[in-house]
């Protein structure tokens, strides 16, 4: 076990499973379960579970002691990567300025409709009260969603899982959903949708589809955080969550 507590283990494991996923993704010509981020998550957890069995420790202990030190090093770079989205946003400033009102109105109304839909869905499936409350703030980035979820009586760990799965799902099934609902026709809406549903990862996905989509997703990531902070407490009160 002490061989694994060096941070380099976490760095190695993260990059190895991701690259393996990328290789498989190419080999299988884009099979959605081999999408690198999704594959890395599943196989990384599986490897940690296996190692936990071998060394007779719990998975969460294996994660905290062996993986997290290295994982944190890689995860730190998410911060500069997020602020880097200001560049594609700035490059399409023409679109942003021209559509400022549409962007703001769409995000606010879109979030409110989504909140009703998600609450209805969560209650229909039979989540507990805390489970429903944990689902509300998932459109915000993790750092905004967690305290908000806690304030609404949700469980932050579940909301964190939601934010992560949102991103993974967008990369794994995004193209499929876009095709079914024919979202590719409207780059503005598609970008805002990808930023709202997939956060930073969704923005990178949007940028691959085009500069307008990427810029819109970056706007959405910023504005949704602020909108959620304002809208969700009121929504929770109205719906008595």
């Amino acid at each position, binding site marked *: 076990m002490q061989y694994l507590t060096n941070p380099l283990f976490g760095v190695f494991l993260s990059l190895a499973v991701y690259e393996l996923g990328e290789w498989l993704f190419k080999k299988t010509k884009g099979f959605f379960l081999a999408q690198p981020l999704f594959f890395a*998550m599943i196989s990384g957890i599986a490897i940690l579970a296996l190692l936990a069995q071998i060394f007779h420790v719990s*998975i969460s202990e294996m994660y905290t002691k062996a993986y997290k030190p290295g994982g944190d090093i890689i995860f730190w770079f998410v911060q500069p990567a997020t602020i880097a989205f200001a*560049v594609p946003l700035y490059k399409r400033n023409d679109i942003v300025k021209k559509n400022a009102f549409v962007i703001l109105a769409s995000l606010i109304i879109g979030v409110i409709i*989504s909140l009703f839909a998600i609450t209805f869905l969560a209650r229909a499936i039979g989540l507990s009260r805390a489970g429903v409350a944990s689902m509300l703030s998932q459109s915000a980035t993790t750092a905004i969603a967690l305290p908000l979820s806690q304030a609404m009586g949700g469980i932050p760990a579940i909301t964190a899982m939601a934010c992560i*799965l949102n991103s993974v799902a967008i990369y794994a099934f995004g193209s499929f959903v876009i095709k079914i609902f024919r979202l590719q026709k409207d780059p503005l809406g598609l970008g*805002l949708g990808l930023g709202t*549903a997939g956060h930073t*990862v969704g923005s990178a996905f949007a940028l691959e589809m085009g500069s307008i989509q990427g810029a819109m997703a970056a706007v959405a*990531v910023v504005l949704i955080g602020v909108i959620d902070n304002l809208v969700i407490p009121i929504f929770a009160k109205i719906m008595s969550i």
Partner: protein
Amino acid sequence: MQEPQEIKKSAPILIQMLIYATILFVAQLISTAMPKSFPLPPAVVGLVLMYLLLTFKVIKVQWVDSFGAALIGIIGALFVPSGISLAANLKVMQAEGIKIIIVILLATVILLVVTAYTTLLINGLINIIFHKESNATDSLQNKEEQ
């Protein structure tokens, strides 16, 4: 679509990193000054700061673009640790597990589709109003010409 600023030579990588580090540092200070009831993470504050600095021409785009593009290009790999962090929360899953995952996956689709269609709807409404206005101004101009 080649924009003129992309042809300009990028600043050395260390200079770019310095700019990113400075913006993140300032963003961190602003973020900690925010009230607890209204959290804004350093990354989001930093994105806004960087955007404002670029828009008001305090920094040039070629001072930050190639390092930023490199980071955005590997963002999938950067999120691997956050995906694997679920390993620490497997207990939470056991309580309502599969139900929660279903709700999360459907919520992702809801957020994407609802936001996209709302934008389409609002854009359509505005176009209708805008076209009426432009028709009105057109006819005004025609009258003036006559």
